[in-house]
């Protein structure tokens, strides 16, 4: 059996099909080209649909702007919803200078406005006028890319749906013949993908954008519904709309095929390293530090960050509880001068309130920051607060995706997690602990009336012999010191 399938494979592989494979043009939008395995189908039309405010126009414009700036493919935008001035203003807020592109003949914007009230219809007509405008604009800049935003407004402007439909069909055929890669945006319909069934005409590539608000927190998602002649990611991918435009997070559960490193890195606490087989954490592993309030979780995180920077590597610290200056002040009290690492560009602290965005957006932010800063260590302090944004299941799903991504990049991750005496949060710790390679539990024990003793326990550490005893430790201005047995 195996031999036969191998033979069959050889046969189908024999002719060179590479020239027949669908060509693609990159969108230049962060993450989207990964999801679509290369971009939009070349010389064809892609449909982007979604509700109002989901970022359709922006996606289309970024496609044009990146084409003009990065791929030497000038573009034409037929804008039916917003005037050229409005588009220019919107894109200026993202740092794109459309007027400059227009001057350099890399971009043409034609604002098409139809007011049904002012138009009387009598007798036969067609939309050749629109075609002529589009053709003229394409010739003007020698466009390779076209954005039609939102072409279905024709249905609102004109009374004769039959003519509009026939003409749209003609338009899409014409675009195909012209060899331009087009993006058409359309409003989401109630039962169909688009309100006027545009998906019937444009069937090569269909993207759906979605903007959900759950408990006052918004999440944007993107899905490739259809991509004729090409494989593509089929999941819903979170995406961000920020001051740099759109970025899709092309990570979903990546599976367990990352290579495990045998390299060890210091935790920043020599006595903890000693407990971890005398060497520290594995590079690329994930570390969980749990503990009740005030047990020193952040101090361990800071020590880890400090040790990373001292090696000349970069550490990225996501703070969901404290502001950067608060972290710096508090950590200097336990002997960690993090400020110097920030000044040297080795440490970056990204502080946000967890409730400021949805889980997917947090994931997207973390992803973008990692892509940009390229750290070897990522600290998330604490993940507990993320639970306030989503339920346990979705938090776990998000962490799985994040951890898979980090492992693939050989980034060592440390998560802290606040636990209470009992209850939901402890379940959280248990729920996510299976994703972690090393689990450090911090606690404190009352000793009589005046004294509290800090305890540390290495609950697990995959792949290394480790000290499982309960230890006590102290926090002082000299740092963390684990002093032997309880």
């Amino acid at each position: 059996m195996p031999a036969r399938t191998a033979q069959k494979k050889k046969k189908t592989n024999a002719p060179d099909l590479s020239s027949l494979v669908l060509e693609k043009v990159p969108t230049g939008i962060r993450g989207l080209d990964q999801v679509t395995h290369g971009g939009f189908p070349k010389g064809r039309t892609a449909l982007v649909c979604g509700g109002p405010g989901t970022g359709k126009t922006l996606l289309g414009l970024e496609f044009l702007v990146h084409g003009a700036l990065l791929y030497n493919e000038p573009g034409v935008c037929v804008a039916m919803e917003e005037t050229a001035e409005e588009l220019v203003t919107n894109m200026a807020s993202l740092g794109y200078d459309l007027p400059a592109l227009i001057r350099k003949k890399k971009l043409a914007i034609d604002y098409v406005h139809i007011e049904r009230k002012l138009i009387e219809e009598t007798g036969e007509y067609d939309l050749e006028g629109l075609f002529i405008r589009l053709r003229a604009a394409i010739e003007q800049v020698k466009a390779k890319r076209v954005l039609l935003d939102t072409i279905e407004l024709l249905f609102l402007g004109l009374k004769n749906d039959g003519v509009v439909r026939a003409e749209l069909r003609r338009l899409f055929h014409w675009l195909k013949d012209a060899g331009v890669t087009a993006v058409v945006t359309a409003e989401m319909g109630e039962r169909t993908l688009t309100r006027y069934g545009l998906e019937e005409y444009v069937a090569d590539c269909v993207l759906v954008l979605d903007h959900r608000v759950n408990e006052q927190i918004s999440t944007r998602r993107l899905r490739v519904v259809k991509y004729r002649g090409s494989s593509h990611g089929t999941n819903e991918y979170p995406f961000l709309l920020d001051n740099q435009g759109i970025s899709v997070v092309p990570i979903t559960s990546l599976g367990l095929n990352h290579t495990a490193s045998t390299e060890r890195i210091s935790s920043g606490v020599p006595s903890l390293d000693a407990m971890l087989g005398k060497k520290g954490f594995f590079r690329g592993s994930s570390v969980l530090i749990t503990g009740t309030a005030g047990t020193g979780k952040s101090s361990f995180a800071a020590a880890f960050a400090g040790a990373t920077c001292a090696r000349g590597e970069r550490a990225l610290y996501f703070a969901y509880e404290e502001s950067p200056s608060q972290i710096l002040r508090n950590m200097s009290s336990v002997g960690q001068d993090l400020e110097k690492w920030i000044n040297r560009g080795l440490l970056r602290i990204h502080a946000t309130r967890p409730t400021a965005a949805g889980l997917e957006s947090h994931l997207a932010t973390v992803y973008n920051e990692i892509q940009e800063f390229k750290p070897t260590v990522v600290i998330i302090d604490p993940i507990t607060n993320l639970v306030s944004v989503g339920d346990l299941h979705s938090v776990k799903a998000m962490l799985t995706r994040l951890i898979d991504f980090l492992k693939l990049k050989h980034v060592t991750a440390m998560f802290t997690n606040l636990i209470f005496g009992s209850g939901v949060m402890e379940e959280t710790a248990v729920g996510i602990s299976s994703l972690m390679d090393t689990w450090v539990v911090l606690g404190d024990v009352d000793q009589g009336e005046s004294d509290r003793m800090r305890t540390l326990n290495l609950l697990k550490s995959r792949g290394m012999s480790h000290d499982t005893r309960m230890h006590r430790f102290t926090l002082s201005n000299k740092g963390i010191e684990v002093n032997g047995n309880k």
Partner: protein
Amino acid sequence: MATSKPTRSRKTAKNGPEMGNKERPFKRPLWELRLYVAGMTPTSIRAFENLKRLCEEHMHGAYKIQVVDLLERPMLARGDQIIAVPTLVRRLPTPVKKIIGDLSNTERVLVGLDLRPAGGFRNSRL
């Protein structure tokens, strides 16, 4: 072929006012009309003929028709926001009005040009 007719019609348009009838039952002295077409298609020709007849009957010579062939002058489509052809634009008297189609329904065209009130009374005071 396709270009000869519009040029001729433009001439006609210029001659229009001079040939006009002196008695004018309208408040506004001059109608300035522009007909956008894309080549001399049967629909364009029909639209022009319908328009010409209608102007003769109802504007008594106080009009000017300019025919714009977008195949020759594509950039003009932007200014008047033309998407459909044929499109008739009433540039004067203001406000600008647009009528698309071959103008075969005279009643609708008259209403569209404010030459006849729509629905009896609503526009009659304009």
